[in-house]
């Protein structure tokens, strides 16, 4: 599980004598093993900074962040998968070699590689594309490959930073369904950052609303799974979430509304 206690983060001033930028203030959040949490906020609310801290990329912060009892970034025993907004694949490596890169980086023993690649490439539907280079694949395929790469190191936690916001809505829909299916099978803890209230409502067990570096509210999502994109209860929940968000931010920086016809 993830335990965040009193987390704060300040960026040093850009100019000498300028004001430091406080991006995170007193964040407290517990995330259970296998839970799917969406962090909802407008751009600049500090949600990406929070993910970087969870990933161990940024260790200069106040407060404590522990994953399974280890401080984030402190030990290799802790495997964290990261899915970025862009695919961030290595263009000079084939699909399979991109996964090899992650396996090498995470020091997975060579004997396990073949099995893991079969499993995760199969699960994202790219088994037949092992030799393809990223530029030969569509945006959706590349993001699925990035997902397979994140999963292949079999992380305790999967972090996702608006991973579908660069995709067209139809592809994104399919990816959301895929991610729920994979989550149901693999039972990873997922922290998913998004500015899209509908996406959060569709995916999450719990929605955490962030604004100006603070957690303002957590909303439990009572919808049963598997969920349906066209479920009326989903739309009702989405309206509640958007309303709460607007109350908190005073109508500023509203998250994305569901598109007409959804």
């Amino acid at each position, binding site marked *: 599980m993830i335990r965040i206690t009193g987390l704060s983060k300040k960026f040093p001033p850009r100019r000498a004598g300028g004001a430091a930028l406080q991006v995170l203030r007193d964040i407290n959040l517990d995330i259970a093993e296998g839970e799917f949490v969406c962090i909802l906020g407008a751009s600049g609310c500090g949600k990406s900074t929070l993910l970087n801290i969870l990933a161990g990329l940024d260790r200069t912060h106040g407060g404590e962040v522990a994953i399974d009892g280890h401080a984030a970034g402190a030990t290799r025993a802790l495997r964290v998968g990261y899915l*970025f907004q862009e695919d*961030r694949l*290595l263009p000079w490596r084939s699909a399979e070699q991109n996964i090899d*890169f992650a396996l090498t980086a995470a020091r997975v023993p060579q004997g396990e590689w073949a099995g893991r690649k079969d499993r995760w490439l199969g699960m994202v539907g790219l088994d037949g594309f092992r030799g393809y280079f990223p530029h030969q694949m569509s945006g959706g395929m590349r993001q699925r490959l990035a997902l397979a790469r994140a999963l292949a190191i079999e992380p305790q936690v999967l972090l996702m930073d608006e991973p579908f916001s660069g995709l067209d809505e139809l592809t994104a829909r399919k990816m959301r369904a895929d991610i729920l299916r994979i989550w149901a099978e693999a039972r990873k803890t997922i922290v998913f950052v998004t500015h899209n209230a509908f996406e959060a409502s569709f995916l999450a067990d719990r929605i955490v609303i962030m604004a100006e570096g603070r957690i303002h509210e957590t909303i439990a999502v009572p919808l049963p799974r598997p969920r349906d994109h066209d479920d009326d209860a989903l739309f009702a929940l989405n309206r509640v979430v958007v309303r709460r968000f607007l109350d908190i931010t005073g109508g500023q920086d509203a998250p994305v509304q569901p598109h007409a016809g959804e």
Partner: protein
Amino acid sequence: MRELALRLVSVVCALAAWTALSRYLPDDLFPGPLAASTALLENIANGSVFKHLGITMLRVAGGLLIAMVIGAPLGILMGLSRLAEKTLDIWVMIALAVPSLCYGLVCFIVLGLNEWAAVVAIGLTGAPSITVNIWEGVKNIDARLLQMAQAFRANRWLVLYRVVLPQVLPYVMASLRFGLGVIWKIAVLIELLGRPDGVGFQLYYWYQLADMRQVLAWTLLFTLVMLFIELVLFKVLERRLFAWRPTVSA
């Protein structure tokens, strides 16, 4: 295929123009392509080509090595550190601006009329253009990919040869290409200045004897060898190194 045909046509046209021009000028002033190639073939037959071309190639290789050894670390440093960039960029510009003849003269005066001086002069002339290319390449490294590698806990070596090197390699190739172009020309000049052999020496020798047939023959040889390196060696190398790119033909 079309490109190849276009190239062939342009070569044929140039040869025709050369022939036509040589018809109107006296033979000893401007011989045609046939005369020049015959002279070249004679030189190949009597072995002088291999001796002089060989020694020039060695100097070019040595010069390129020195240029890389000096130029590449400076380029990397300037790409990584703003301080180094701000301190050194004016000097790179100055080094680029100094005429190559000056490097040659200074080296021959300071180091003496020897092989060392020649190779060092060639290397010094080539170094700044290598620095410029590699500096540009290191500056353009994608920070987002570095962050990805860090998120997967890649160690330094893995980051270096899987993430950094593939991004810098095209710039290294460009710098080699560019550096070689500069170095070929300076090598010939340096040989003319202070060496008793090599293609540059031969050019100067025949120039003093006013033998245009031989001057053109050596120029032709030199150009052909350079074209071979550029069009065959570099093309093959790039195709192998950058096979992952969407389009490599340009």
